């Protein structure tokens, strides 16, 4: 705590710097310069991307004996992508899945480039599609950050038509209250006579009246805004999506491609390969929703062809390790985890999560238990079987029934699972316990009085007398 003299002018920059809050140095309270804990980047107070990332990202290596068709190194371009940041575990370039909570449990704060994710789902629900659509929306939103001519992301959707892309979730614009507020602010910012007459005092002055010592940034000062924005070195890394809204405008043909399923899955791979080559330098998000769903995939596809397709998807991730991320969803009702085909499919993925909706009885119990706190009600277990890179290193990261999820309007919540306690039963038990205690005390207190009362015809009267 420090104090000013009465004569000092408040807001004098020279004196402010002497008090400990040096705005010129960017040391603004709350403006943490590094998005990655424990890692410092030079020049993070500017909007430019850190220059030191490339030195920490694994460089291309000498080619192995039979590595054919290796694409040219596009790592440098990708590092300038607004949706790429280094993994906090391995420093490898990582992209967001479109769900910040899913990013968090993957350890890397996202999915490292050159990795594939398998989302398995039990039952008739379709939470996996929600995640996959957010994954797509994230790519489209990042693609639209630049000018129309400078596309940085390309989506490839396998097995779906263009109608699928029209239902991607749009950006979350805040609650209704926030939206109203923003409309008011927008209206006020317009140049009109009434706005000029009723122009309120600058917000900063109000802030200074309340707590001059911790005065906020001057919103009109571009330098201050610059410093404020640097609180996150990767402001466009991930966004929040509202699943009740749609992404407007819908993805254009230069942003997304739909690869139909053909009788030979090898042709699908060839088509994907061509598209990736064609969009060299862009970040490719490859999506394979509802894999092996009989409505989309012909029943005549053999296991060999299925596994070859999956193996080739892995080959693509390795071939274009600096450009591509893949997400595939599989319904476990059609292909349970005990099925050897599913086991082999899992072998070719870098990351595996399973969405397992709660059993109806368990869901009832949870609803009953958290009736007073409905926010705690979740919808199912989220099991993890593989984490990108770490599982391949040999770490055992299988986590079953350790996390649970809830699909909300604006985010896909993931929490640690805890066994719900039925509050009513617990309360009843407590009440019963107390009643029993009271009853015991009561009967005990009466025991002296009631001795021989059974033989006393005036029992009721006696009690009354005692009570009175």
């Amino acid at each position, binding site marked *: 705590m420090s104090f000013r003299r009465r004569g000092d002018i408040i807001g004098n920059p020279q004196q402010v710097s002497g008090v400990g809050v040096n705005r010129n140095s960017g040391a603004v309270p709350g403006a943490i310069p590094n998005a990655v804990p424990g890692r410092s980047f030079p020049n993070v107070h500017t909007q430019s991307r850190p220059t030191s990332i490339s030195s920490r990202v694994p460089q291309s290596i000498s*080619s192995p*004996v*039979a590595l054919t068709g290796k694409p040219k190194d596009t790592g440098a371009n990708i590092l300038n992508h607004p949706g790429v940041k280094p993994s906090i575990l391995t420093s490898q370039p990582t992209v967001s899945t479109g769900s910040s909570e899913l990013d968090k449990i993957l350890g890397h704060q996202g999915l490292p480039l050159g990795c594939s994710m398998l989302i398995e789902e039990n039952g008739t629900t379709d939470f996996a599609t929600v995640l996959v659509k957010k994954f797509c929306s994230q790519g489209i939103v990042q693609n639209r950050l630049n000018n129309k001519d400078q596309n940085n992301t390309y989506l490839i959707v396998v097995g779906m038509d263009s109608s699928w892309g029209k239902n991607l979730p749009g950006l979350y614009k805040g609650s209704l209250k926030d939206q109203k507020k923003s409309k008011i602010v927008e209206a006020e910012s317009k140049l009109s006579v009434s706005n000029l007459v009723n122009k309120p005092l600058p917000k900063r002055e109000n802030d200074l009246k309340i707590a001059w010592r911790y005065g906020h940034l001057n919103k009109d000062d571009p330098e201050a805004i610059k410093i404020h924005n640097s609180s996150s070195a990767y402001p466009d890394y991930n966004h929040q999506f509202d699943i009740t809204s749609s992404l407007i405008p819908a993805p254009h043909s230069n942003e997304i491609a739909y690869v139909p399923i053909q009788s030979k899955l090898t042709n699908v791979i060839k088509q994907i390969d061509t598209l990736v080559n064609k969009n060299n330098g862009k970040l490719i998000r490859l999506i394979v929703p509802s894999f092996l769903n009989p409505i989309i995939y012909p029943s005549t596809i053999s296991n060999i062809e299925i596994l070859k397709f999956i193996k080739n998807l892995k080959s693509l991730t390795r071939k274009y390790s600096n450009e591509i991320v893949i997400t595939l969803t599989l319904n476990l009702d059609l292909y349970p985890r005990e099925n050897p085909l599913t086991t*082999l499919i899992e072998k070719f993925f870098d990351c595996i999560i399973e969405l397992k909706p709660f059993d109806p009885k368990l869901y009832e119990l949870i609803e009953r238990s958290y009736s007073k706190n409905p926010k705690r009600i979740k919808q199912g277990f989220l099991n993890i079987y593989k984490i990108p890179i770490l599982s391949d290193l040999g770490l055992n990261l299988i986590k079953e029934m350790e996390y649970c999820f809830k699909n909300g309007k604006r985010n896909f919540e993931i929490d640690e699972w805890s066994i719900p306690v039925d509050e009513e039963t617990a309360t009843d038990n407590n009440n019963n316990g107390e009643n029993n205690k009271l009853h015991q005390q009561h009967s005990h207190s009466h025991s002296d009085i009631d001795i021989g009362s059974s033989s006393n015809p005036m029992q009721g009267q006696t009690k009354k007398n005692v009570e009175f």
Partner: protein
Amino acid sequence: MSDAQQQELAIFKDNSIIPDGLLSSKSKTLITYVQGTSPGWLISALVENLLFNTFILAHKPGTQKFSNIKSRSKVLLVSFSQDYKFYDKFFRKINVSNSNHNFKFLDLLTSTMYDDGEGDEILKKIETTIEKEFRNDYSDLNVIIENPEYLLHTTPLTTNMLLIFLNKLHLNYANNLIVISSSDKNLLDFHAQEESSIEFKHTEFLTKFLFRSNLIMNIKPLDTGRANDVTGLLSINKGLVGYQTDEIEIVEKEYLFFVAKEGNVRLFFR
């Protein structure tokens, strides 16, 4: 767990991983693993031991000068499930790369994307690589093949054809043939009848190779579930075929192992 508990990996009676005597004789080793315990660290340990007769569990930069050590044999690592980039981070620690004339890596994951044949042409690539890279000097060549069973599931190749090829490879080129294969319980069914099914082919391959192996190793997670300080269990067992000399003897035992996030491994006697 403290450093005092740390143990060294020893497979044979002379406390070695691969004894010198084994390098000049023929042997087959089968390593099986399941989901949750990937064998990358064990494969790189075997490569290191075959090349330099060392196995440094926790590599400390600068403590070992592998460039000064003369390699005692040649190694070809063939992988159907990983590319070279994956192993590069292991091999950099021991100063080994694909340009090293005693070590070669053959990537059969990315190089076989558009091979539409019966699978035998992929096997042919292994032979071609050996002949090209080691130039008819196979006297001290060791071949490690990771997940050859993937060929059975992604091509029409039969189990017998694969086993015949492995036998041929062992007889003509490799002194030590080490095969790494997955053994998840969903892939194994000893009562499977349908020959084209995944479980039939997988079980047939593992069983037949197991009966021809001298050494069997298995890594799997703990039966009691995941632990923060133990990754899994490594068991070492004698194979169903003995070694040519009595001097080479396997000591059957089990280790608990822990893989850290940096990839370093610690072993503990069970």
